[in-house]
Every structure is written in C-alpha cells, then in structure tokens.
C-alpha cells in the first residue's frame, strides 16, 4: 500500500488542521448532529463512515459552512480551522470556502461551461482574471487524473464527459483553487470500479500535501485510503481512531458490527 510511504508521526491528532468542538446541527427542529468533537489531522486522510442518515454529509458540510446554505438550518458549537473559529463573527464563509474545498456526491459540473471553463470556474467566481491560466488548467486536470483523456477536447462542454470523468472534473475544479482542505462526500458513489480506483489513487497522491476528509459507504475504500476513521451513528460520533484500529480492533461493539457488515 502507498500509505506506507509516509511516516506516521507519533500522534497525528496533536495539531489538527480542523477541529470540531461539541458541534450540533439542526434541520428545522430535527437534530442531525449531536455534540461531535473530532480532530482532523493535517496532511492526512480522514474517512467518515456510518449508516445512511447518521449525519456524515451534515458534518462535512459544517466544515465549510455549506450547512447554512440550506434554509431553516442551524448549528451550535465550534469548528476551528488552524485553531481559528470558522463560525466567528469576523469570518466570511465565502473566504472560508476558498480554503476548504468540496466535492459533492453527485458530479455537478456547470452545464453551460466547457471542460476548461469548469476547471477555471472557481477562480472566476472569486473574481480573478484568468487570461493565461493554461498552466492552472493542466495542473489541476493532471492531478485529477483526467488530463490525458481531455487534453484535446478542452473546449467541449463539461457535460459531454462520462459520469466518472465528470466527477474527476469536479475534483479538478476544486483542486484548481489549491484548497488546504478537501472535503469529499461519497465521491465514488456514482462511479464504476475503474473510475473509483482512479479517484482512490488521486487521494493517495493528495496525502502529504492536502488534508482530505472523505465520506464513504465502502468499507474497503475507507480502509484503503484513510489514515484515521470516524464512525458516526444516529448523529453521534461513536468511535474515532486510526483506521487500522477501527477495522481490526475497534473499542465499541457497534463499530465492529458496522465495519464487519453485520448492520447498516
């Protein structure tokens, strides 16, 4: 496994890139997250697992303040990025999202834009000029393992790509902004095994340079790509530890049942 390339420091939780502290989140009166305290280690991959509806998406959407985009939602508690409270009154969520990128479960390339324009969409949305950005486009697409497939068709609509290619395009779009943290919500759920393998490879490459949080329903995938794993159940964080520990010797029975596929 590629994972062995990186030497694991003694305690990767010591200076986390992000950290939530007693985080609660609501949709209307429905409480989706209950007191989540979790540290996301810098330059490592954190997997979030748990049965459907347990709050995985809600949690990562709180990390880039996308939760509040949905009307009628509310949070309580704190989330820190480099030990700065991202829900502090001086923080503009728009600026936060420049540093904390996100890839959605369903590929959502912008339908009116070409492949190239999709990659540059973030820069343009942020009001930056993109006259000579060929380099940015190439770099992002190479990283997302899509360059070879699209380098001759950059002018074509983003929607003309296959689902797997579209998802990699969305990853390239996020990477073009060089975010410090990349949140991925089930990025492979719409993909075939080959496309999933490519994205897993990409996540391996991102390790060490970026902090990655990935939500997944695929236990093998979580075991393959992540350094640490958080198990959520009914809006609560049940267990959070090194991935090997979670999958081989979990502390709690619930976790064991879930990772061995006995429920969920």
């Amino acid at each position, binding site marked *: 496994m590629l994972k062995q390339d990186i030497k694991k420091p003694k305690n990767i939780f010591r200076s986390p890139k992000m950290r939530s502290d007693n985080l609660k989140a609501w949709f209307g009166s429905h409480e989706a997250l209950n007191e989540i305290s979790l540290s996301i280690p810098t330059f490592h991959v954190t997997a979030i697992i748990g049965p459907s509806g347990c709050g995985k998406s809600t949690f990562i959407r709180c990390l880039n303040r996308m939760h509040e985009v949905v009307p009628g939602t509310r949070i309580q508690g704190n989330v820190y990025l480099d030990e700065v409270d991202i829900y502090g009154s001086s923080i503009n969520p728009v600026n936060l*999202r420049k540093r904390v990128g996100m890839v959605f479960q369903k590929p959502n390339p912008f339908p009116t834009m070409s492949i190239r324009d999709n990659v540059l969409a*973030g820069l*343009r*949305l*942020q009001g930056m000029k993109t006259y000579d950005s060929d380099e940015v486009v190439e770099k992002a697409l190479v990283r997302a393992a899509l360059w070879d497939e699209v380098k001759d068709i950059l002018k074509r609509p983003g929607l003309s790509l296959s689902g797997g290619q579209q998802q990699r395009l969305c990853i390239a779009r996020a990477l073009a902004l060089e975010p410090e943290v990349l949140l991925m919500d089930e990025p492979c759920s719409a993909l075939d095994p080959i496309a999933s393998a490519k994205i897993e490879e990409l996540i391996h490459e991102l390790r060490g340079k970026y902090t990655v949080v990935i939500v997944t329903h695929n236990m093998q995938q979580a075991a393959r790509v992540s350094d640490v794993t958080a198990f959520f159940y009914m809006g609560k964080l049940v267990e959070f530890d090194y991935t090997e520990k979670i999958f081989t010797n979990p502390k709690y029975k619930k976790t064991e049942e879930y990772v061995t596929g006995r429920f969920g």
Partner: protein
Amino acid sequence: MNQELFLSSQVDLKAARSLKERLIKALFFFCAAVSILTTLGIVGILIFETWNFFGKVSFKQFFGDTQWTPLFAQKHFGVWALISGTALTSFVSIVTALPLGLLAAIYLSEFASKRIRSFIKPSLEVLAGIPTVIYGYFALTFVTPCLQKIIPGLAGFNALGAGIVMGIMILPIIASLSEDAIYAVPPSLKEGAYALGGNRLATIFRVVLPSSFSGIGAAAILGISRAVGETMIVVIAAGQQPNFTLDPRVAVETMTAYIVQVSLGDTPTGTLEYQTIFAVGMTLFIFTLALNLGAHHLRRNVLKGSL
C-alpha cells in the same frame, strides 16, 4: 323475471351511459374543432385577401418602398414604414422590460423573503390585468409629459413613451417566466458555485443566469411577441404617423395601429385601401408566428433540460 328486468335495465343503463359518454366526447370534439376551424378560417381569409392585394400591388411596391400612404391620392405601399414603427416600439419595450423583469425575477427567486414574495407576485399579476387602454392613457398623459422634461424635442405622440409603457405591460410575463427559468436551475449547481468560494452575486451571474438562458430567452421572445401585437397603447400614445424612422422621439405608426385606423374609418370594404389591412395583418401574423415558434423551441429545450 325480476332478475331479467334487473339485467335488462342494467344493460339500458350501460347503453345510456355509453351514449352520454359519446355525446360528451362529441361535444368536446366540437369545441376543439371550433377553435381549429376558427384559426383555419382566419388564416384562410388572410391568405385570400392578401392574395387579392398582391394582384393589384406588386411585392416590390410593398417591400421596396419606405413610404406608407395608401389612404392618400398619391399612394405608396412601403410597409417598412409600419414595420419600423412596430420594431421601434417593441425594441423600446423589451429594452425596458428585460432588465427590470430579470432583476425582479432574480430578486424574487434568490433574495425575497416569503412575505415579500407573497406581496410582490400578486402585484405583478395585477399589473398584467390592467386593460391596455389605461396603459395607453398612462403613456400619453403621464409618461410622455415626464419624459418631455428630460428629453427636449420629444413629440407629444412618440415611440419612446409608448414603448416604455408597453415594457411595463410585458414586465409581468418576463418576470414570471424568467423566475420559472431561474427556479428550474438545480440547487446542486448553486451549491457547487458556493463551494468554490463564489458569493451570491457571482453565483447568480456566472452560474444561475447562464444555466437558465433558454428560459429567459423564451420569456424575452414571448414578451416581444406581445409587444409586436399590442394595439391600444400605440394607437393612443405613439401617434399613427407612418414615419420610416428609428428615432424614438418622433411619432410612428405600427402595423396594428394602422389596421385599427382603417377598420375604424369609413373605408369601403373590397377596395384596395381596405385590402391593405389584410396584407399588413399577414405581415404581422408572420412576425408573431415566427416569434412564438422561437419561444416554443427555447422552452422545449428548457423542459428537456438541455441548454
């Protein structure tokens, strides 16, 4: 015996019911047929009278001239004078209505709270329900005098005032169809833009509006089509003078206004003067038909979800 009676009445009932159903069906068919036949009849008469007209006046006289004086001794049939009047007033109206309608649609769909929405939407519908004759007097007695204070040399009857008021008239269609189009943009696209660090305005202008381009285009075309066919406002406020001009400050006559002028006058039926209105009507019909087909095409694209 009883059993038999029961059965036979049951059969009667069934027959009666099926007869009733057939009658109702026939009635519906008749209603549908009436509207189709009416349309066919109108188009037929238009074609017939237009044909007669072009037996007496050549295509070249009609399309190759810019003077329109069929009611005078010195007759000219240059329809461009009327087309320019129609184009000019419609252009002014869409230039007025599209930005306003689009802003209203953006405001309603992206910014307005539920309470404000529930107040503005019905107001727009009221705007759509005002009789056009009232708009006409509004243009003549209020908008034009106001404009004359800012624009020196503005005639009392002019294309500008009539066009602006026509723009207000088509504002509700444009706003409501554009709002539908904006609403139809999937939230996932907006979330995608927010997640890339886009603020609200950037998201609207770079993602939402381009994605709803077809629907907004259809709204604009339908609005223009309404303006092209609008009669009362231009009859009252634009002045019934067939000037071949693109200057909105002077009086013009639209195709519709000319038709009204002849219809209300004492032109005897069957004369050449009388037939001009059919030739003009035909021209108008072709314009609005083309516009409606264009809008229909765009809207079908919206419904199919392709852009």
